[in-house]
């Protein structure tokens, strides 16, 4: 069975190659510490395979992660490198020459992802599934990205062998330390949970059990959104807020339909995700990747929709949750 490990190896390889290219980049005034940032992250990815398999202790990896964070927190250690990409004139010329063929690599990714996601779970080898449950879409995306790179390299003609990696480094440098933020946030989320943050929030919420159906619905939805905004993850907020408000107040006291309450409660949490810097994958990372001047620019775009959707979810839950 194939699980997520090949995806991890591919990401590790990418990080290590970027580290190597950075170390050789004399245009980067901090090339050694910058290379150490990407290289240690890549080495951590490799070592993590043994941790997952239970063959190595986890604490050395913890030390590596903290070192990477320190290296990534200052421009004195992490700087973008210099990559010689093509200029505007060369790009116009190449666009004329290649035309619609340029879309092919970009199309490879969704097509291959789609095929593997849909067909992957059905493939069996010797009566056992080839792809582990829940891994098909990850493997599809990874395979799609690799195939698209090879197709792009072969189809689009002459460039140096290192071009795909140099171009990948150019985009990775646009994000800098922001690139590793989603992973670090996942780590911090686990620390929060293990330190008992959920219990503390639950205790605070239970002291203010509100009265009345509409108030109860609003309290559950608003708390979901607010706690998600703070921790950056609706999945982490859901058990806490549901145990404190959703179940005791809405389902037990007000006899609300649990399916409606929980389904829409999660969506209320998503309103918080849209405006949370802690949900970096959806807010800060896209802003960095699109080279927006304002780090919080994506959050600004999301905010009006998030606010309206939060109100809408309160209304929808209030209408449908109480069977007559």
């Amino acid at each position: 069975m194939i699980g997520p490990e090949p995806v991890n190896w591919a990401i590790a390889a990418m990080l290590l190659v970027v580290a190597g290219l950075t170390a050789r980049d004399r245009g980067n005034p901090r090339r050694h510490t910058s290379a150490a940032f990407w290289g240690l992250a890549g080495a951590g990815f490799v070592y993590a395979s043994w941790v997952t398999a239970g063959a190595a202790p986890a604490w050395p990896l913890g030390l590596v992660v903290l070192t990477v964070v320190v290296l990534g927190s200052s421009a004195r250690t992490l700087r973008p490198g210099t990559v010689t990409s093509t200029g505007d004139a060369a790009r116009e010329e190449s666009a004329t020459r290649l035309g619609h063929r340029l879309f092919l690599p970009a199309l490879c990714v969704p097509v291959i992802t789609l095929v593997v996601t849909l067909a992957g779970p059905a493939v069996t080898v010797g009566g056992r599934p080839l792809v582990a449950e829940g891994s098909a879409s990850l493997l599809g995306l990874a395979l799609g990205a690799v195939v698209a790179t090879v197709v792009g390299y072969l189809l689009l003609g002459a460039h140096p062998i290192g071009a795909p990696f140099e171009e990948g480094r150019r985009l990775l440098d646009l994000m800098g330390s922001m690139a590793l933020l989603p992973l670090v946030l996942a780590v911090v989320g686990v620390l929060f949970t293990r330190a008992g943050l959920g219990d503390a929030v639950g205790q605070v919420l239970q002291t203010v059990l509100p009265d009345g159906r509409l108030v109860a619905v609003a309290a559950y939805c608003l708390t979901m959104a607010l706690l998600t905004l703070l921790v950056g993850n609706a999945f982490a907020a859901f058990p806490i807020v549901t145990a404190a408000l959703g179940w005791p107040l809405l389902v037990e006291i007000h006899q609300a339909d649990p399916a409606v309450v929980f389904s829409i409660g999660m969506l209320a949490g998503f309103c918080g995700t849209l405006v949370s810097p802690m949900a970096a994958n959806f807010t800060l990372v896209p802003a960095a990747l699109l080279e927006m001047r304002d780090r919080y620019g994506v959050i600004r775009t999301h905010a009006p929709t998030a606010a309206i959707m939060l109100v809408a979810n309160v209304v929808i839950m209030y209408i449908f949750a109480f069977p007559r």
Partner: protein
Amino acid sequence: MLVLIGLALVVIGFVLRMNPLLVVTVSGLVTGAVGGLTPLQMLDIVGTAFADSRPVMILLLALPMVGLVERMGLQAHVRRTVGRLASLTPGRILLGYLALRQVTAAAGLLTVLGVAQTVRPVLYPMVEAAAERRAGPLTEEVRDRLKGSSVGVETVGMFFAEDVFVAVGSVLLITSFVDANYGLQLEPLDLAVWAIPSAVVAFAVHGFRALRTDRMLRRRAAAPAPDAVP
């Protein structure tokens, strides 16, 4: 109760616009220490959680392809193609992507489209080209607004349609949590059905905002912003 200090640190750090990587790590370690974890326990947790969460970085794998097609002129090509199609306004392109994103997400195809693999190489260049054709050269401020809108249709479209699919992570999390804790027997389908009203409202609300992009551009074109004048 003292562990709530971690959340306070996060808020303060982000408000002061400190480095996000440092803010969240310090807040996590402080919360852990206040919550009674020993340094070795914390290192173990950090290492294990890092190992388990590695696939979240899958975005990196699309970067070589995206960089390669940019190097070979994809954005220039998209700009020319869109420039010839007069009916494609930025608002309509954004609306079309929003619809496409909701349909793919509702079918469970979360990774088929995305910021790295679709928005940066294809969607934003389309929007930018359509905007330039209507309003002439764009200011950096307008460009940033259009970039935000391009990311917005991707995230909003995905968030408020993914729960319509029965086997998505959040629906499965809900059923496993409530079934284990409260002895219910909720079917994923029961939950997915109740995600439909919000998906429809999200399309109406965000689609309306997407179409308003064209009005914003018309206003800017009529009265150029001060920084557009050399």
